[in-house]
């Protein structure tokens, strides 16, 4: 090491710092170059990736619920609408103490237990910054009260939304069904994307069957969000497709008339336009108010409905299976003629009893002493049981089942509603399979008057009787007359012909129809007294009585007044009118009550009376093809 010099070498020191400074500048330039290279890599080379990430950060697609399609009847009467309601919504994220807020809120707005339960359920399914409705349908007074004290409740707001409403309440509940909040099971089945903004889904009836049409397609808003997820502004709106408006084949006037005519008795009415298969009325009584299901029915109320003896939730028209009773007779008569087992001229002598060879059991006619000499027409008109006992033993169960199945019994009609039941066409195979028992000749005898195991729904009965009205031409019964996307053309739904019932001789139809006409307008007819006089149209019908118990002397029309109401007979009536140009075919069942024929009179008078002309004029607006 050199010895330290006492005199500073200034030149050398300047040299040193300058050199070091130059070196520093050199190094600095290199690392700034590195930084610039890094920037170039991020901003130029990787720009596309980071632009995507940045967009994903800031821009959210917010789905917009498409307005649900409206439901009209065939004349344009609104049956299901969307009404604006004010709901009380809560944004959980903005509320520090939810329990306390709820307690405070309940002093301003009445909050029921079911509201709270629904809210808690929703709370688990939504994000913290979503608006969750606490109470739907605030009254005007509640809106006013809350608005007054709104500043006490940050994170609680009143929101206007559309809610499904059924203006006729109970009257169309079984046909229309209702919408309700999407539940967990449905969540797995629906298209999650299309329902991303929807809270409601069709649960039953038309609302369920035509869910896809009614719902429409979801729209989107591109919303710019900040980091906390709060929307700042809407950048772009992609409108979805509103749900289609549906026009039903139902004639609401007719439906209301039928409902009223049932006079509060349990029962069902189905009216079909024979030439098209359009269902004009479909009543099941008692019914329920679908609107309470939209708001969200409480568990207690739901149980009450479910456990009610009168089964208001049960759609009798579609799912009620009843014995065909004597309404089976026209079909068997047709088969009798077709198979040659009987002829129009063939007569029997009815002394009131019938016995099968080698069996001791005695079958009775419903008239104690019998009808005397009876041909086919008379047998139908006065519903002679003995004639059909004999006919059935000649034809055998196979031919009977055959004709019933041709008319659509024992199978789904294929109507555009879910949950239909097929009923039963009893056969030896069916009995063995379902009951594990063999078929006895007596079963055939029972079946010949529609008792025993033969069962049909009112819808099947109506469809079958309209087939008779059509001389065998069958149409699929349906409810959707047409659909219309808002702003677009109305598209009519075409009726669908089914395999017709073909007979050897077209005359057989006339014979049976004439006999059915006698049921109503011949003094010997079973409906003559009840139906009354003074109608302006021709009508063909057939009565039926389904005995509920074996308590009484078989087949005697005894005094029903002495029997408790629940055990009284079910009464059936099938009919169509006018006979030459059938416009309406009906099937009516009144449970434990004998006013089925009265109901038919009310319906026919309404539909074929003066009212119908008014309706037809309106009808052309929706259904250009006409009746």
């Amino acid at each position, binding site marked *: 090491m050199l010895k330290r010099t006492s005199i500073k070498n200034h030149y050398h020191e300047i040299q*040193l710092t300058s050199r070091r400074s130059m070196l520093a500048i050199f190094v600095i330039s290199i690392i700034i170059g590195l930084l610039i290279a890094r920037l170039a890599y991020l901003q130029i080379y990787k720009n596309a990736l980071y632009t995507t990430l940045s967009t994903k950060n800031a821009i959210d697609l917010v789905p917009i619920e498409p307005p649900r399609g409206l439901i009209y009847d065939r004349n344009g009467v609104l049956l299901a609408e969307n009404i604006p309601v004010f709901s009380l919504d809560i944004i959980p994220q903005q509320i520090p103490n939810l329990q306390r807020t709820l307690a405070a809120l309940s002093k301003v707005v009445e909050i029921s237990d079911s509201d709270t339960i629904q809210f808690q359920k929703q709370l688990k399914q939504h994000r913290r910054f979503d608006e969750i409705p606490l109470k739907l349908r605030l009254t005007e007074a509640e809106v006013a009260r809350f608005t007054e004290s709104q500043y006490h409740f940050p994170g609680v707001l009143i929101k206007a939304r559309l809610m499904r409403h059924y203006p006729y309440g109970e009257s169309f509940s079984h046909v229309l069904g209702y919408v309700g909040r999407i539940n967990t099971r449905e969540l797995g089945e629906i298209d999650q994307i299309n329902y991303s903004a929807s809270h409601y889904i069709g649960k039953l009836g038309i609302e369920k069957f035509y869910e896809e049409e009614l719902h429409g397609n979801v729209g989107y808003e591109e919303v710019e969000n900040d980091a906390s997820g709060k929307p700042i502004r809407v950048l772009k709106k992609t409108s979805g497709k509103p749900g289609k408006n549906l026009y039903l084949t139902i004639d609401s006037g007719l439906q209301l008339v039928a409902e009223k005519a049932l006079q509060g008795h349990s029962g069902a009415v189905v009216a079909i336009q024979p030439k098209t298969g359009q269902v004009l009325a479909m009543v099941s009584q008692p019914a329920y108010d679908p609107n309470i299901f939209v708001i969200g029915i409480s568990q207690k109320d739901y149980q009450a409905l479910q456990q009610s003896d009168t089964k208001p939730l049960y759609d009798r028209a579609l799912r009620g299976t009843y014995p065909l009773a004597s309404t089976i007779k026209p079909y068997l008569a047709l088969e009798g003629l077709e198979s040659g087992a009987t002829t129009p001229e063939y007569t029997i002598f009815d002394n009131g009893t019938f016995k099968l060879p080698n069996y001791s059991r005695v079958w009775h006619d419903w008239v104690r002493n019998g009808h005397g000499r009876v041909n086919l027409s008379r047998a139908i008109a006065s519903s002679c049981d003995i004639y059909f006992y004999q006919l059935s033993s000649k034809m055998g169960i196979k031919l009977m089942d055959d004709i019933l199945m041709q008319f659509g019994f024992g199978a789904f009609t294929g109507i555009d509603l879910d949950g239909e039941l097929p009923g039963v066409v009893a056969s030896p195979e069916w009995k063995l399979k379902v009951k594990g028992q063999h078929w006895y000749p007596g079963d055939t005898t029972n079946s010949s008057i529609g008792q025993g195991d033969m069962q049909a729904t009112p819808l099947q009965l109506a469809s079958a009787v309209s087939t008779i009205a059509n001389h065998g031409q069958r149409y699929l019964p349906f409810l959707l007359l047409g659909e219309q996307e808002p702003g677009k053309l109305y598209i009519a739904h075409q009726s669908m012909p089914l395999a017709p019932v073909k007979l050897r001789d077209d005359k057989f139809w006339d014979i049976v129809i004439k006999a059915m006409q006698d049921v109503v307008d011949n003094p010997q007819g079973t409906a003559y007294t009840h139906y009354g006089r003074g109608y302006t149209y021709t009508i063909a019908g057939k009565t039926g009585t389904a005995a509920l118990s074996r308590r009484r002397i078989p087949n005697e029309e005894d005094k029903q007044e002495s029997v408790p109401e629940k055990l009284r007979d079910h009464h059936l009536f099938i009919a169509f009118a006018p006979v030459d140009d059938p416009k309406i075919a009906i099937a009516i069942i009144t449970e434990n009550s004998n006013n089925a024929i009265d109901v038919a009179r009310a319906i026919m008078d309404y539909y074929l009376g003066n009212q119908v002309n008014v309706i037809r004029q309106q009808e052309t607006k929706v259904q250009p093809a006409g009746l």
Partner: protein
Amino acid sequence: MLFDNRKPKFSQPAYSSQYKSFWQCIHIDGPLLAFLLLLCAAGLLILFSASNQKLHSIEFQVMRLLLAFGVMLIVAQIPPASLQRWAPWIYAAGLFLLIIVLISGHIGKGAQRWINLGLIRIQPAEIMKLAIPLLLAFYYHKLDLPIKLKSVLLAIPIILIPALLTAKQPDLGTAILLIIAGASVLFLAGLSWQIILTSLAALTACIPFAWYLLHDYQRQRVLTFLNPERDPLGAGYHIIQSKIAIGSGGIFGKGWLNGTQSNLHFLPEHTTDFIFAVCCEEFGFVGTLILIFLYMLVVFRGFYITIHAQDTFSRLLAGSITLTFFISFFINMGMVTGILPVVGIPLPLVSYGGSSMVTVMASFGILMSIQTHRKLVTT
């Protein structure tokens, strides 16, 4: 110009005693002032957007800048010789305050970085940023350069004691800058390559031990730096969002006030430590190059002043100030772009907040003083 320091200075008319320019009379270096004003203007522009166009935060920043410029002008009036005389006292006072802060922080049970004097709050660590290079330059000025091992060893406690005290606060960013400020003096004073290389090697060997000394959150930062995706919503969130902001800027940027990352609060700390990302997002690659260019102008002017300084004290001090300034903005840009770990060092003169702004401007005041207080003869 940069290389002509071997020529006698009095031959240049600008430095002659007969003629003094206006700028020299008021002891302001014109070019440096111009660069600083440009930089601050650019900084305000970026901050206005980063703060979501809040005028009042701009007002605060402008007031701080005015204060800082005022300090700069005052410091520029102090001749280097006076600074040289005061250097040990400044260092002693700074160290004393640093210890006081640490003690009161212990009593207050929390991070304490400043002493509250009512009107203003003093951060002793900021004083140390200048005190360390002052003391070292003062010390080495008396020695022959290049410095020997003995004087290097003496410098170690001078640098490390305040640095460790600052790191204890805990303020890792400032502690690093303190070490940089000291080390840069050593470097300019001719620290031998042998020592530089061995100490770098020793430092590398120490990394595993240093790991145990780090606070947990500091370890997290290092781990997150190595792999930001390991914790995308926690510690990695900052750097991921910052890279998104920078990358989405592209060549020309999204435009002023149009940066979604910052305006919609995806980018955290977007007015302070991560404001550089806002610049990258809104002004793109081109705009960022311009900002870096402005910073480099200041740095080059600093080196110009360093090389032209008249004595060893001034040279070492000016060089250290310039290097420290460079390192502080480079560390910030490096951390924002993800090439350095996240340490809390703001972007000088642009980031919102004023704790380091006064120090930075005071240091530029020293540079101006060195440039404008000239004697006839170089010593």
